[in-house]
């Protein structure tokens, strides 16, 4: 080894090549400056990979593949990958293929050149060599590659080695995804293998796996296979395969209801007998998904199986010690809830407990479920649970551990050196990630606003919830992230904006509660001012809708002056242009309300007060007149001018004189008239579609064609300001306000994890509302009930937090007294009537609880234009979305699914079509290829002959043999020339070629051997030739350098 090393050293400068082992060792030994080390290694690899020595090349390749794993791009080496792939030695070839699998991307150009190599290896001699291209193909596949390798891949289906057979089957499936015609050629053989009872069981299993993948894409094709599949399910005894078969049957049963009857006995049998939990679970899952549950006729057997399934799932959740079962049971429930919501609702108790699980995965799944089963009875308790959860993971807790976005796209160095800074603190539940919090908030809002608030009984409670949510919403982030701008749904900034939107919706829709809403809006605004110290930006997305509420319904406020004050305080600190525009508008509205009183006498005091107020507003607005955002700028300029005019009028109206008892009209009439008028009502999202399109309006035509250049000119001006903003945000960003600063110590006596009580125990509001909100609630309640003789005023404090001692008692006794832990299932006598054991306890317990009387509150429906679709409060918060929205979402889904495989084409292929009608015909293709190959050989032979003749001539003429270098160009040019000579030989064969490439012009193809056809063939051959130079290249290299030739 050492000697070889020395030899290398002598051969290649003075470098000592590293093996992969050395590289890894080096990386481990260079902790701290790995980056530099790796850069050096990459540099070395770059040099090594260019060497002629294949061993060295392959080693360098292996190192590159290793480094690629750490994120070091190796796309530049794609040509070298090809070189290593074409090595005759297996262990080098393997490295090359690994390199291709790991580094080739759809846009890798050399892929075209790999075709011939792949074809060659597919027909290789040893099993291991054949397996390489088969395994690699799924990673590289493109439609054209599929077309050209298919003919070599198909015979591998009948290879003697089962390993090759099963790998081929899967690869053909991946081929079919990009090139559906594959199926037409491959399916008959695959079917044959599946039917063959003597086939190797692992090959059969592979086919079943593939059929399962294809099954949901085109279930109709597999119905005829049902008997055989059924046989496999019953007899095979292979659990892995059984799982897949059950999944497959679940997609088939909706098409063939008779299957249900056939499947039930074996499935029930498996459920009762299998020791494998995974199989048991999939059986249940299959029964659910296949629509076997309650599919029409109410057989006794089905009733029985339904109860069996649901009770098994229920016990999966209840069973201790295996969170995985809990998770998958929730997954199954999630599938049931779509079709059988009532079955899930019966399991409310266990599902609700999962919401408080320490495991985020389980929480999210149960959240999904809860959303589906909410009703007016359980809404408050469910939302209470969620609120408590949000609150207990208090913001500063979550903030430290939340994923910093900068972390995610950090460079390789950071990745390699990460020493996990987020180690779990002992005993503390892991903090909730921001997106989970945002998710919970969205769900709370969805549940409450569902069906135009039909589940909501207590709007005052809802407003308090919203107020609390604003404080708990995760901080919105600057939207410079790529994702956040495109996918608004996962954007955290949205959470707070949605809360604001909800408040606005309620304000607009529910007349009765409007004053309370406006008060809440004011309070939130003040909170914003208070929380962020002056000079720091306010980024909450809730500002915009809340400012709108304050402006629009200023008449409902108790003290408009305070509203105006807080708006004016807020304006300089808002960063988002949209919020800013809303605030400007709102401030002016409030001002016009304050100042526009036409009845009050025009006294000197009032005059000076209004003048001062206007001066203050103008002062605040002035900087906005040069705001980079046009909307903000325009509004600011407008209002400033208006206010200046008004100020002039005010100063002109003498307050001391007798005849000037009235305020200036500009103030009392003109300004308010700008803002008052018809009351604004909520309009359905679909209404816009129904507005008739005005004629002659072209929305695509730019209003100002020069806009872009104008904007480009304006850019330099605005840039500095924005930059400064960013810096400011960066340096001044501070953790969001903590809402528990003023929390009384008594609250801390409560255990961190609230008493895990039974679900019917109303979670006390103290658990999730901030003290100040609570205090207000209590005061309101007292106020409301003060005339009620049955209401004991002071006693109210007992309903909430009890004394600490009582609390401690409760906590310690809690588990023992937990109603849910008592096994009620077995004791239940009504079982027979209801059928599902789990359902009864929850019903029985729920019954005595009286339904809270619904407040008599009118909720305005969305306004719409006749003929339009459903009315929704907002397009995103309801189940009955407008079609266009779902469609666009589906579209987006299709476009940008990461890791997803696009298989949209495969569904449209018709397998049943006549094999020889137009479509891809494997046999004829093969024939043609053979002919083509023969023709090519002939061409090559003739070319060589001619070349030799040429050489002879050159030598005879005494031309210097070393004179010119062979160029690609020469060859291309030569090819047709060579053919001209042997045209007669080639033409009859090549005449058939057009059939393959352009099926459509049959006329030309069937034409007899004529000059035209010959020309055509020639062109084709030339093209073929031109396409292949690089594939031929490796061969060429090995040949001795040809003597030069002169271009003709």
């Amino acid at each position, binding site marked *: 080894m050492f000697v070889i090393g020395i030899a290398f050293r002598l051969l290649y400068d003075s470098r000592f090549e590293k093996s992969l082992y050395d590289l890894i060792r080096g990386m481990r030994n260079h902790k701290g400056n790995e980056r530099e080390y790796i850069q050096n290694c990459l540099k070395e690899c770059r040099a090594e990979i260019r060497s002629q020595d294949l061993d060295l090349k392959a080693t360098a390749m292996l190192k590159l593949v290793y480094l690629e794993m750490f994120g070091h791009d190796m796309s530049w080496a794609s040509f070298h990958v090809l070189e290593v792939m074409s090595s005759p030695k297996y262990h080098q070839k393997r490295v090359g293929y690994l390199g291709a699998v790991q580094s080739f991307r759809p846009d890798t150009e050399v892929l075209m050149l790999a075709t011939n190599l792949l074809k060659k290896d597919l027909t290789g001699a040893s099993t291991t060599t054949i397996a390489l291209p088969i395994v690699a193909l799924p990673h590289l596949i493109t439609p054209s590659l599929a077309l050209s390798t298919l003919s070599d891949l198909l015979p591998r289906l009948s290879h003697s080695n089962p390993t090759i057979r099963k790998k081929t089957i899967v690869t053909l499936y991946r081929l079919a995804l990009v090139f559906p015609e594959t199926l037409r050629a491959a399916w008959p053989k695959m079917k044959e293998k599946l039917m063959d009872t003597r086939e190797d069981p692992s090959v059969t*299993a592979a086919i079943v796996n593939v059929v399962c993948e294809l099954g949901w894409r085109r279930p109709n094709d597999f119905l005829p296979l049902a008997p055989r599949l059924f046989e496999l399910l019953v007899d095979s005894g292979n659990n892995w395969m059984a799982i897949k078969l059950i999944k497959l049957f679940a997609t088939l049963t909706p098409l063939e209801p008779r299957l249900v009857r056939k499947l039930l006995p074996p499935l029930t049998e498996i459920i009762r007998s299998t020791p494998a939990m995974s199989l048991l679970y999939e059986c249940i899952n299959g029964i659910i998904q296949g629509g076997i549950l309650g599919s029409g006729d109410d057989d006794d057997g089905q009733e029985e199986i339904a109860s069996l399934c649901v009770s098994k799932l229920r016990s999966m959740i209840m069973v201790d010690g295996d969170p*995985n079962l809990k998770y998958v049971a929730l997954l199954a429930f999630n599938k049931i809830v779509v079709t059988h919501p009532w079955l899930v609702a019966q399991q409310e108790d266990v599902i609700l407990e999962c919401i408080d699980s320490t495991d985020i995965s389980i929480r999210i799944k149960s959240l999904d479920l809860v959303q589906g089963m909410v009703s007016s009875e359980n809404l408050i308790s469910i939302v209470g649970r969620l609120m408590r959860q949000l609150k207990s993971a208090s913001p500063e807790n979550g903030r430290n551990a939340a994923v910093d976005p900068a972390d995610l796209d950090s460079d390789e160095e950071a990745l390699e050196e990460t020493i996990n800074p987020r180690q779990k603190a002992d005993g503390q539940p892991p903090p909730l990630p921001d997106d989970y919090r945002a998710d919970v908030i969205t769900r709370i809002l969805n549940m409450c606003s569902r069906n135009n608030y039909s589940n909501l009984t207590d709007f005052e409670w809802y407003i308090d919830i919203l107020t609390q949510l604003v404080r708990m919403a995760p901080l919105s982030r600057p939207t410079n992230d790529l*994702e956040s701008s495109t996918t608004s749904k996962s954007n955290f900034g949205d959470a707070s904006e949605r809360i604001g939107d909800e408040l606005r919706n309620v304000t607009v829709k529910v007349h009765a509660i409007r004053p309370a809403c406006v008060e809440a809006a004011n309070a939130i605004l003040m909170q914003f001012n208070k929380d962020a110290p002056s000079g720091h930006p306010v980024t909450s997305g809730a500002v915009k809708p809340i400012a709108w509420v304050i402006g629009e319904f200023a008449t409902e406020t108790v003290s408009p002056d305070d509203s105006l004050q807080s708006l004016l305080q807020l304006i300089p600190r808002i960063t988002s242009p949209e919020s800013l525009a809303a605030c400007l508008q709102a401030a002016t509205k409030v001002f016009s309300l304050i100042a526009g009183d036409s009845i009050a006498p025009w006294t000197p005091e009032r005059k000076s007060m209004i003048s001062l107020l206007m001066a203050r507003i103008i002062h605040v607005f002035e900087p906005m007149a040069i705001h980079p955002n046009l909307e903000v700028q325009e509004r600011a300029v407008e209002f400033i001018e208006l206010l200046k005019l008004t100020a002039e009028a005010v100063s002109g109206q003498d307050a001391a004189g007798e005849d000037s008892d009235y305020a200036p009209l500009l103030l009392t009439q003109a300004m308010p008239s700008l803002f008052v008028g018809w009351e604004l009502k909520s309009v359905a999202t679909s209404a816009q579609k129904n507005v008739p399109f005005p004629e002659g309006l072209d929305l695509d035509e730019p209003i100002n064609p020069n806009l872009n250049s104008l904007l480009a000119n304006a850019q330099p001006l605005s840039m500095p300001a924005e930059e400064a903003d960013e810096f400011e945000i960066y340096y001044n960003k501070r953790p969001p306000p903590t809402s528990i600063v003023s929390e009384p110590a008594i609250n801390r006596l409560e255990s961190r994890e609230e008493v895990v009580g039974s679900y019917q125990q109303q979670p006390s509001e103290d658990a999730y509302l901030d003290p100040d909100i609570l205090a207000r609630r209590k005061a309101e309640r007292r106020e409301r009930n003060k005339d009620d003789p049955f209401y004991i005023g002071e006693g109210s404090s007992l309903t909430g937090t009890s004394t600490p001692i009582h609390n401690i008692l409760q906590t310690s006794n809690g588990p023992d007294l937990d109603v849910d832990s008592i096994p009620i299932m077995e004791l239940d006598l009504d079982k027979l009537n209801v059928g599902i054991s789990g359902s009864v306890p929850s019903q029985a317990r729920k019954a005595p609880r009286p339904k809270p009387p619904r407040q008599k509150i009118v909720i305005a429906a969305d306004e719409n234009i006749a003929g339009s679709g459903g009315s929704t409060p907002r397009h995103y918060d309801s189940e009955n979305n407008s079609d266009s929205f779902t469609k666009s979402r589906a579209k987006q889904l299709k476009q940008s699914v990461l890791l997803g495989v696009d298989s949209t084409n495969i569904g449209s292929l018709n397998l049943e079509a006549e094999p020889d009608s137009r479509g891809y015909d494997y046999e004829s293709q093969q024939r043609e290829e053979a002919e083509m190959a023969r023709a090519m050989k002939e061409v090559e032979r003739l070319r060589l002959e001619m070349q030799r003749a040429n050489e002879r001539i050159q030598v005879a003429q005494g031309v210097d043999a070393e004179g010119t270098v062979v160029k690609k160009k020469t060859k291309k040019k030569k090819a047709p020339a060579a053919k001209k000579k042997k045209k007669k030989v080639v033409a009859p064969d090549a005449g058939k070629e057009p059939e393959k490439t352009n099926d459509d012009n049959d006329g030309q193809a069937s034409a007899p051997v004529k000059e035209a056809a010959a020309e055509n063939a020639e062109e084709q051959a030339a093209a073929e030739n031109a396409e292949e130079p690089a594939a031929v290249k490796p061969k060429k290299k090995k040949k001795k350098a040809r003597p030069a030739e002169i271009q003709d």
Partner: protein
Amino acid sequence: MINAVLVFNGQGQPRLTKFYTQLETSIQQRLISEIFTLVSNRPDGACNFLPLPPILAASGTSHSASEPHNDVPSLVTYRHYATLYFIIISTSTESPLALLDLIQVYVESLDKLFENVCELDLIFNFETLHSALSEMIVGGVVIETNMDRIVSGVKAQGTVTKRPVNEARPSGLGAGLGGTFVWPGR
């Protein structure tokens, strides 16, 4: 189908990355680090399924099951052995519990190949890691679950080298990965 198989250690350093669809290197890295963040924050006794990392959730799937789409990666399964995390990203056509078993089969096969496997074996023989995987999964579809066949398939491709002898074995790994860990629900 299976969209990706990942192996990384407790520090988030990748030991194996296999994506069954082509993906930009930078996105691969981002995905790995997001999953690592999720995985390293798991409490004890949590289940072996992760919520979707933001990068996957953003690219089309929502948490809600209301729109089941079989082509979209929707399940992230992981198992933790000694210093390593094994992750499988898959669509809803795979059975979650079976995937857990699949990881177990993979690790047990590696254990057979290396005899008492530890992280170092995998670092220095990542090619073997790849070939063992390709005996089990091709193009995102499981082709073999029988351990003996997997092991013989890998051995047919060439000898499996043990880790270099002079490489010191860090303490704590002695127990190996394959070990006695058997998931009780199996």
